[in-house]
Structures are given as C-alpha cells and as structure tokens.
C-alpha cells in the first residue's frame, strides 16, 4: 500500500503477464486546484482500468515499475499490480467532500 499525499494505491491483484493496458499520456491520479501540481505516472507505464461509483482502479503492467511523481513529494516506485485508488475525503458540517491540495 502506497500513499503520496492525498493519493493512495492499494494493491488488489497481480497485473498478470499478458498485454496490460498502457496509456499513451501521463495518467493523473490527482491534481491540485491551487498549485497545479499533479500526482502522476508517466505515459506508457500505467493506465486506468475502471472508474465508477464503487471502484476506481489503475494497472501498472508489462513487468516494468512505474514512478509516482509529484512536485512536492518524493517520487515512489510502483511495482506491477492492479491497484484500487480510493479518494481522501473530509467531513465538514455533516457533509463529505474530497480532499484537494
């Protein structure tokens, strides 16, 4: 399990040895509203798998370790796996809202 600021990657399955999807652009896991800084993995190293109300997943595949980057955090190597991507929420006045930096 990897945390970088308001991004959490929870490994849930092996990526497998077959052809895994790889995005041709950087995959951005979160982007700061007021800083413009992004938590991202470079194009060709990872891809989103699913995005819905109950699940948000990405895959790091192809046997190559990806690097999770952000301007204000140390980079983190991410080994090939399928990862859940829960979001961080705060509670204000009885309501939940997503944490943004």
């Amino acid at each position: 399990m990897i945390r970088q600021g308001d991004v959490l990657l929870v490994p849930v399955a092996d990526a497998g040895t077959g052809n895994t999807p790889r995005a041709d652009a950087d995959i951005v896991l979160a982007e700061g509203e007021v800083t413009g800084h992004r938590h991202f993995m470079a194009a060709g190293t990872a891809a989103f798998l699913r995005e819905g109300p109950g699940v948000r997943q990405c895959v790091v595949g192809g046997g190559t370790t990806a690097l999770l980057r952000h301007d204000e955090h140390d980079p983190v190597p991410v080994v090939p796996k399928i990862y859940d991507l829960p979001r961080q929420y705060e509670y204000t006045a009885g309501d939940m809202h997503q944490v943004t930096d």
Partner: protein
Amino acid sequence: MAGPIIRRPDRVAGELTAEERVRLAAHTAQWIAIAMQTDPCDPIELTRAIQDFYRVSGLAAPRVVIVPSPLVMALAGGIASAWWRMQEEITTRAATRAATRAATAVATAAATDAATRAATAAATDAATDAATDAATDAATRAATDAATDAATDAAIRAATYDATAVATHAATRAATYDATAVATYDATDAATYAATAVATRAATATATSTATSAAIDAATSIATAVATDAATFAATREWLGPLIERWVGYPWFEETQVEIRMWPRRYQGGNMWASWECYLTAMRDVLGLRLPEHRAYDAWERAARHGGFRYLHPQFCLVSDFPSILSIDDRHRPHSDHGPSHQWRDGWALWHWHGVRVDQYVIEQPERITVADITTETNAEVRRVKIERMGYARYLAEVRATVVDELPADYPVKGLRSARLLQVASDPEPLVLLECLNATLEPDGTQKRYLLSIDPHAYDGQAAHNCHAAMASTWRRANGSLYFERPEHYAPTIET
C-alpha cells in the same frame, strides 16, 4: 557510450565538452531571464514577429493586438472570436438573399466593415475594463441580471443554433494553431531530433529545457494558466454578461461563453514556454546545428522572446504583455509574503504562498483570517496556509482544541507519527481534527503540519477518539462509503 564528438551543421553527436557545458549554463540563464522578465514588451518587435510567424506558416497576416494580461487575452480572444463568427454568419445569410435586398446587403457590409476595424481592439478594451473590475469588485457586480438575461436569451436562440457551423469554426481555429506550430516549432523539433544523437540530445535537454522548466514553470505557465482558467470560468458566470451584450449581443451569449472557455486549446505560451525554446536554440547556438527549418523557427523564437501567452485566430492574434511583478521563493515557486506574486499592468494579480494560490487578504491582511474562515475552507492546502499565516498556536488557542489522542514519533505508519486528534466544541456536534506531519521533509528538514476534518461517526465513533481510525476514515470510495472495512486495514508501507 556517447561515441565520437561530431559538430556539423547537419549532425550533432558525442558527449558535451566542458566548454559547451559552461555555454549551455549561460544560455539557460538567458532563457530563464526571458521567462521571468517584468519590463513592458516591445510592441514593434512583437508585432513583426507575429506577422512573420503567420506568414511562414502560410497564413495571411493577422491583426496583432497586444493586451495587458493573459486574462484579457482569454476574454477578448473569446469575445472577438464570437464576433468574427457572427459576422461570417451575417455575410453568409446576406449572400443568399434576393437581389431586391441588395441595397440592404451593401449597407450591412459597410457596417460590418466599420465594425470589423474596431472589433478586436474594442473587445480588448472592454475586456480589460472587465478584468480590472474582477480584480477589484467582482463580488459587487450585478450577477443576477446578467444570468437572467443570458438564460432568457439562450432559450430564445436555442432553436436556431447551428452546431455544424460551430464545429466548422472550431476546426478553422484549430487549424490555425496547428499550422503555425507545425510550420515552425514542430518542424524544427523534428529536424533537430533527426540530426542529433540520442546521448547528446539527452544531455542537452537536461542542461537546458529541464533546468529551465524547473526554474520557471511553477511561476509562469502553470500558475498563470491555472489562474486564467479559473478567472475566465468565474468571469463568464458572474460579470461577463454586460460585456457580451455590448459586443456580440445576448443572442450570442452562449457561443461567446464557449469561445472564452476554449482559450486553453488556442493559446501558445510565448516566453512562458521558454524551456522548449531554450533546448532548440541551444542545439543551434551552442552545438552549432544549422538546419533549413531554423529559418521558419526564427519567427516563433522571436515571438517567444518578445511576448507572453498568445491567442491564435485566422483574423487576429492577441498577445499578452509581460507581468510587471513576478516573485518566487528559493524553490522557484510563486511566492510573496507582502503582495502579489504576479501582477500585470492592467491590475490583474495573483497571490501565492510558497506555490499555493490564495486570496489577496491571506497575504496582505493576515489579521483578517478567522477561525470560521479556516473551518469553512474546503481546500486542504489553502487551509494549511491560512493556519500558518494566522499562527498555529493562536489558531489552536482560539478554537480551544483539546487533545483526545496522540501517537508516538516511532508509530509504524509513517504518516501518523506524532499525529494528534483534536476536538473542538461546536454546534451541532464537536469538530474533530486530525493533525499530521507531511511524510516528505522540506528542504530545510522541517515537516509541514496539516489538519484533516474527520467524520466523528465513522467506525462506530472510533474515528472521534483514535488517530488511526480517524485517518482510515478519510479514505472513501467515489460514492462516499468507507474504503477500509476496519481501521487497522489502513497500513501504507510507503509514504511520501
């Protein structure tokens, strides 16, 4: 192995020499200075560069309008684009009318011509006024009137709206962007790539574009683009109505809004994208590459040296002047502890605290920051800055926080080391705050502190009394449900 050193006009390979590294450092410093300059632009040189730039791209010379800020560029670009589209529609309709209406068509054409001459500059002036207003008294604008007028007008006009025409016009403008970039920058970039060896290219890119980008990006393209985007979005909602009515009329309200919001797809960065120019010109000026493509690139380069963001249209090109203030911290992030980090000559300004964009009062009048202000702030970074500006000790004293849980400095979960769970008396229920230290150290060895507001009911109330449960409760699925079934399942092994 980098292989033999080759320095020919058509081929560059081999390691960088010590002398070249020194020259590359000076070259990079020059482009950083270009990106960070705060003197007014030279309108003659800039206009000439833009006209050449269109010409070498095979396009007719545009009207070149120098505007005082990127915000005005975005607004005036959208309004003027809508105006031009409106004129094209009028012209098309006029051409299909019967000959008996010829006199009317002539009169319309004459009026169109006169209006055309004034349109771009006039729209720019108006947008400047609007931008200045936004910077000073946006909250007092009659937003309701504009929104009501827009909604009424949109309802009337919806039936005649021609989606095909919009798509055609969008394609035309995209073609302008592509034609200029392809003929100049892209062609030179590709030719440079083909004429250079991989190791030389990589070393040069590191010494030039990477170094320049690290020095300028946060303060130039990132901060400015993010702020302009936010400002144009807010502007179209709150105070753009009268401006649109004045220049294109309410029947074109929605189209104009769309045009304005499309600005990020139609701009090029000018001096604010200096890292790319630094690399290509280094290959030419330091390593001696001389390619046929450099001739067309010359106009693009001059446009980058002499101007900021630009908005491209087949008929006109709006170019932003340089800012008058551009202030950064020792990590090259936009920052000022007493005034704007950025200010342009029309008064539009941005305020940043070590890279975090905040409202003016947070920097210039921190005494106005209140506990309520901090409590209702939804952005975690901005909240952290507000607490820092107020003073951490004063904030915790004012909210009369009591510590209900505290973790040791060697707690297994790195991001929870020395964490404290605070409770603040509040109606209708206590406010629960988790105080944590950033897992990544600052360059000076310190750690940023931040607060997260916690759902006290999570995990049957454990989140209100236990730091670990509190942190676990912040991680949710997109539908808001708890991600971890039990708090102890939250156990990151790597945290930065």
